[in-house]
């Protein structure tokens, strides 16, 4: 099936337009631009200063899905970056070295500000040091304490609010020339919360059997607007309403998952997946699942920008800065291991999954550290089998299709075997 034949829903087409419009806005030269990150970003705050949001991680993903990240990574390695460095970083550095062209074919402008809201990923700090070196523009860093005890504390929240008041907002005011208006922020947050309600409704629909959606491969599309430049906008509200209608339609018709190749067919396995997907072989990777009848009913990656379903977080217009603080503190990678274990185990139980599959990412320490322990713990808590595959984010050299397929098939058959045995003794002669 060629790229043109990919089956796309209305909401996917809308999202595509939204992303294209945002790239046009960034490259128009008419607005100020901030580079920032996906996890716990401050999109609503940037909007208060009419600053457009450019996300290096998303650019790397876009380039990977267009099969361009390989050469960018090689370019970054030629300039001295080690093979072990996060491949999002290298794809970004390589893109800059190759003319810094946005997916719409126009050059990215130099950012007016680098806004780093550090959330659980140590690489972000180093990444922004490199960007600062390159652009020599103002940099503001929002330090988000790691939730080592599992739950954000009042102290943590106060610390972030203080930074927002004393550092982040004054810097953004200076750069944009716009005075901060807290009521404007409240209005955006109100809109965020509205879209977030639909997002959570969507996530929870995979509790149904068959699940009408895939919450990993499909989930990365569904989470797009809420984690990027659209949270707080009317566009996001429209998008999630449309998505909700689409999903409701599938539910009404009793349909299972739609894949790029069409309807999936019988739902044989329900999985919870931990870790980001591989972007360079995304379609091939997904195909290995849907051909086997495996649907991902929940994934941690769809919480990487922010967690909404676990503790029912919503942006709160009545407590605007505090709610931004809670949001940053609560993103998945900023949670400690026991919380991640609890989250995944709960997902397995609530979504009646057959087990936990981990896609361990070679160049992502933030996600990968402790994953084996995490798997064992989830196995213990749920009694469901876990399995491990290994790929990378955007480096095409680290996707061995034969190896991944072999492990996946083994895992699916292992689930079958366990089901047949039903935990009872079926001894051989």
């Amino acid at each position: 099936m060629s790229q043109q034949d990919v089956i796309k829903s209305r909401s996917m087409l809308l999202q595509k337009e939204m992303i294209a419009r945002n790239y046009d806005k960034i490259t128009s030269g008419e607005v100020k631009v901030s580079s920032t990150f996906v996890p716990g970003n401050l999109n609503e705050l940037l909007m208060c200063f009419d600053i457009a949001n450019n996300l290096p991680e998303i650019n790397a993903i876009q380039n990977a899905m267009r099969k361009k990240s390989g050469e960018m990574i090689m370019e970054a390695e030629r300039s001295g970056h080690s093979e072990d460095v996060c491949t999002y970083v290298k794809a970004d550095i390589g893109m800059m070295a190759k003319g810094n062209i946005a997916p719409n074919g126009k050059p990215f402008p130099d950012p007016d500000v680098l806004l780093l809201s550090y959330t659980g990923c140590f690489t972000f700090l180093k990444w922004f040091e490199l960007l600062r070196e390159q652009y020599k523009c103002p940099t503001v860093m929002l330090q988000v304490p790691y939730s080592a005890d599992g739950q954000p504390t009042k102290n943590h929240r106060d610390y972030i609010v203080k930074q927002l008041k004393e550092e982040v907002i004054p810097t953004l005011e200076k750069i944009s020339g716009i005075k901060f208006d807290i009521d404007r922020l409240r209005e955006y947050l109100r809109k965020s919360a509205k879209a977030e309600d639909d997002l959570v409704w969507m996530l929870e629909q995979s509790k149904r059997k068959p699940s009408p959606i895939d919450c990993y491969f499909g989930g990365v599309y569904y989470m797009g607007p809420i984690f990027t430049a659209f949270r707080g906008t009317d566009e996001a509200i429209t998008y999630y309403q449309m998505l909700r209608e689409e999903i409701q339609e599938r539910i009404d018709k009793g349909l299972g998952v739609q894949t790029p190749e069409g309807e999936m067919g019988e739902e044989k396995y329900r999985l919870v997946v931990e870790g980001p997907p591989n972007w360079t072989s995304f379609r091939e990777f997904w195909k290995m699942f849907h051909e086997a009848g495996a649907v991902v009913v929940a994934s941690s990656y769809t919480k990487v920008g922010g967690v909404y379903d676990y503790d029912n977080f919503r942006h709160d217009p009545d407590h605007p800065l505090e709610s931004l603080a809670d949001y940053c503190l609560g993103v998945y990678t900023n949670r400690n291991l026991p919380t991640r274990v609890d989250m995944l185990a709960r997902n397995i139980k609530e979504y009646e999954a057959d087990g936990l599959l981990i896609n361990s990412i070679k160049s992502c320490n933030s996600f990968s550290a402790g994953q084996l322990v995490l798997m064992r713990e989830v196995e213990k808590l749920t009694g469901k089998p876990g399995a491990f595959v290994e790929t990378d984010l955007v480096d095409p050299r680290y996707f061995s299709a034969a190896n991944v397929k072999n492990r996946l098939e083994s895992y699916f058959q292992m689930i079958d075997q366990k089901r047949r045995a039903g935990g009872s003794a079926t001894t051989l002669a």
Partner: protein
Amino acid sequence: MRTFIGIDLGSTTTKAVLMDENQAVLGRGITNSRSNYDVAAAVCKQEAKIGARFTLFKNALGSGGGAEILLEDLERNFRLEQFLSELNQLEQTCENYLDHPRFKDMKSALREALGAVFRQIETEAPAIYAPEADRKSDFFRDIAGSRFMDIAERIGRESGISFESLLNIYDKSIIDVESLVHSDEVVSRQLMNGLSRALKELEGVEVSEADAQAALKKVIDLELEETYVVGTGYGRVRLPFPKEHIRSEILCHGLGAHMMFPGTRTVLDIGGQDTKGIQVDENGIVVNFQMNDRCAAGCGRYLGYIADEMKIGLHELGPIAMKATKTTRINSTCTVFAGAELRDRLALGENRADILAGLHRAIMLRAMSILSRSGGVTDQFTFTGGVAKNESAVNELRKLIRENYGELTINISDESIYTGALGGAAFAYRAV
């Protein structure tokens, strides 16, 4: 009779196990996987059936009265018959190639030379399969090929025919012959001929010629019905049967190890392309597994690479390493880096055996890491796959298991290479 077959299409060798309705293994077959999995699967399945006929014949003869001698002799003579038949096919295929326009001018001279080469191999054949004869390989290609090279070189020199031309014809023909799978009829004839040969030369066997022939005939006439066939290994998708008949190697090795040693809880399988740590429950059901990540370091292929680097045969690695007086520390499990370290150590004048012992340890350290990732090593521990034949590798593994997990039962079967195929056969049995 109803039979259940498991076929393990590995990257280096293809194995088959045939079991009966009581889950008793009747026959095993092995062949090199070559590049053609279809042929490899058909050949090893036929070999497993031949093995089954031998087992059934043995059961029919019973013990005593020289039955063991007869069986041994039958097997040798059957292999000789098989060899002669394949040699005959090779000769005919070579002859066919002579019609090619490029050989037009020298056709008769080539035919004569080829005839002389084949007559000589034919004359030597009984000695190759004589009692106590040492054969380096059981594969036709290896035996016939090495004899052809030797003899053709001499005959070419004597008759003024270029050795390259003879070699060229051989190279083309051997591929065709290798791709042939003997039909059941051909195999039956070879078995009966083999028995006739055996009976002619045997002494001290009380079984009468007529009884032996009748018994073998009865065994040959027994239909080995392929009730269910399960395939596993990297070539499994090539097998000409539906998806439900395919099981991953992880599951097959887990179940196979359980069949061999029912107490098995942890399995280590070192195959050509990957190393697997597998945990199974008391029923042989896989509860967890881990495989080598992203590279083939520490797999069977690594040993092959080291053997190539040292210009020795794969099977010689273990015995040389066993002569080590100390274990050289090799840090790299990366295949290419290990090659570099090996050269470096050799250049420093270190003993070859010591370096090889170090390499075996490096592989096993890698295996230990995979095992620990899969959940550790639990009593009983079973080591499967081709590398389990390597004494030095086994030695290092035993040491490491003891150091890290204490005294555990470590199972290694002589038939370890068939573990995956055995698991496949057990799945085939369960499927019905």
